[in-house]
């Protein structure tokens, strides 16, 4: 099995705060890796470091057998990133944006046109001629997804990608990701929707306060904790359980 993503001892300090303590994990080709954790646990920070946006304080990242620090451009040519907040150039139209991405990644024109029209049909994107500044959150999210998926990257990183998507588009995204994984891509996704993690992810890592506190397939996590639902496992691991939550609610 080929390991497309290898992360070892990744750490990030922001001044005195340590956002990520020491994180190591691997993702194989054909695998969807789910990254769960409470707000502020360090998921986005981890993803920014792996995608070459943020320089880690220490640790190594290897993607497609290339060291990210040494070959950032070669690595970036192979990956696709869907950030948590779709911030795009407001004064460009969707079409111009896709053109820009296609040019940067030196895509083939006919193939790109073909894939884009397929993806646009799937996500019901019919607003490419409008300015991005006039898009809704979900529309921007769809545009980013199209720009990433049209390239069929070897490794895809998604930060809470289903936020803002309507039910049908979310469903299609999930199925597409599964298909891309089956075709040999490696996929890293963070999410707060445990149901998505449960149904889609081959392996799950749970991060709390900058450290991975549990990792494995759903079955492994179940066996380890003795709980059935991922929700219980998650709450248990991150330091609260059903009774605590109940008490909080009652006190409110």
């Amino acid at each position: 099995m080929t390991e497309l993503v290898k992360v070892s001892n990744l750490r990030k300090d922001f001044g005195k705060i340590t956002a990520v303590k020491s994180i190591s994990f691997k993702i194989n080709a054909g695998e969807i890796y789910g990254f769960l954790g409470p707000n502020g646990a360090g998921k986005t920070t981890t993803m920014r470091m792996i995608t070459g946006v943020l320089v880690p304080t220490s640790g190594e990242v290897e993607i497609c057998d290339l060291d990210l620090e040494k070959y950032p451009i070669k690595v970036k040519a192979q990956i696709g990133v869907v950030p948590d907040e779709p911030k795009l150039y407001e004064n460009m139209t969707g079409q111009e944006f896709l053109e820009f991405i296609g040019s940067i990644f030196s895509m083939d024109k006919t193939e790109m046109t073909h894939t884009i029209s397929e993806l646009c049909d799937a996500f019901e994107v019919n607003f490419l001629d409008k300015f991005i500044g006039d898009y809704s959150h979900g529309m921007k999210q769809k545009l980013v997804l199209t720009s990433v998926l049209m390239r069929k990257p070897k490794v895809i990183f998604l930060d809470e990608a289903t936020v803002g998507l309507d039910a049908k588009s979310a469903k299609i995204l999930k199925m597409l990701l599964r298909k891309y994984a089956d075709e040999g891509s490696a996929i890293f996704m963070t999410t707060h929707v445990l149901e998505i993690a449960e149904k889609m992810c081959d392996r799950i890592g749970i991060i709390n306060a900058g450290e991975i506190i549990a990792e494995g397939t759903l079955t492994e996590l179940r066996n380890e904790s003795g709980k059935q639902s991922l929700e219980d496992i998650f709450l248990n691991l991150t330091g609260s359980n059903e009774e605590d939550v109940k008490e909080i609610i009652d006190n409110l």
Partner: protein
Amino acid sequence: MNQLGILLKYKLKMWSNIPKRRGRRGIPLFAYILILGGVFASIGVPAYFLFADTFKTYSTIVFSGVSLADLFVEISMIGILTLVLVTDTPAVALNVFMSDDVDFLLSLPISQSTIFASKTIETMLQGGFPALFVIPILVAYANAVNMPWYMIIFMFVMYIFYFLILTSISALIALGISKFASRSGTQRFMIFTSLIVYVFVILLMSMVGSLNSNTGNVERAFSSYVNTVNAPYLPSTWFLEALKMQWNGILLVVGTSVVLSVIAYLVASNGILTGFSKMISAGKRVTYRRNYRIRRPVMAFISKDVKLMRREPSILFLLVYPAIFPLILVGFGALGKGGSAVSRDIMIPVVSVFLSSMYTVIATASLVSIEIKVGDFVNTLPIGKRTPLWSKAFVITSAFALVMIVTFSILSVIFGNALFPIVTVLFSIPVLLTLSFFGVYATIKWPNSIGGIRRPLNTTGTLVSMVMGVLGAAFADLEGIYVANNQILSFLQPVLGFLLFFVAPILAEIVMAVVTFKLLAKVDWTKPYDLEN
């Protein structure tokens, strides 16, 4: 505390929080005021002495009840009027109707007029700085005509009312724009501004025309000039009349000021919401092509930056000025000295290069801050870290060079003599490129994180970039003068002229470029606001 006070206080807090978030100690407010005061004094005090002398002689030259000093005060007032209308009106429009926090503010239980007032005051505080520079002129005038102290206080009260007139007009026009322009049709802003400027240019030109046609009779020329500047419908005329304690002047200034302020406030109290909704609603579409165009990556970047520049009104404003202000200067230059051809041919390119240099820094800063606003995105692309910067510097430099070339071509067709302008543009291109990179550095070093794309630099950054712009422009102009106009250097020994006007500026330029690139290498342009290391 009333709501307007709260809004302004919270803006001020955000302002003073910026250095703290970047891990530095905040600068106390009084230090800021001291620094600004120092800058103001260093320009204002020499200006005062300069004007005080001139006004003494000018005030004795009187024509049909108006002295030359009076005329000068009036012209300054017209200047301020133009400046406020041309620069602050679009700023108010953008700041009130297109700024990010208006959305949030409108959702709070605050009246629309309060939001409008706070936004307008905020813009005027930032953009009204030039209005302070009239103060030395006014004091010098008061001195020249021997005003008693209570009259000086009265004069400043009148000036406040006068400024209120300008603010209200500006705010009303901004409200008007918001009804007609949509966010996507941003170019309309630019057209609007250019129109105002053109009207003024035409006014001035017609004045000049009336002067020139009467060259034989200086007195008649002066009288027609007085009549034009002293037109009864201009607020500047009312201001002067008020200073002379004429009742109709005082009434007009105070009355207009109060009436316009009230109208602006009333209109704003129900206009802002509809204006704002129009500005944020989806506007014009660009034609949809089934065909996609694939370019080489670097070309894709350049073409993207050209699009972003074309569609960003604040950058377009910056581009329009170097083209239009020289024309205004043709007017003023001709007024002052009867318009000698040499001073005109040299003045125009010099002024244009100065404006282009200063604005190059700010325009690049704006373009870079668009990229910064998009955040991590660019970093995830497989391109070199420097590609986006080169592309921006290239786009901005070319744009300003193009504007100058077009302006100068038009002017040389009208006036002849194209050598100096052409040489100067050529010499200014490397300067503009360097300044553009300096703009990148300035955006990272002195960001104004609440100013957004429209005001990308904080006060320090704006001042520093102006100084750099002036220096760079001076270098290019000196070289241009040496190569194209060296007969005016005949007072110098040839060797000295060569050293001072050619070698020294080129060396200084190289030093500037090296320093800029050294500075730029030290910072990471991709994360200006992060607390790194």
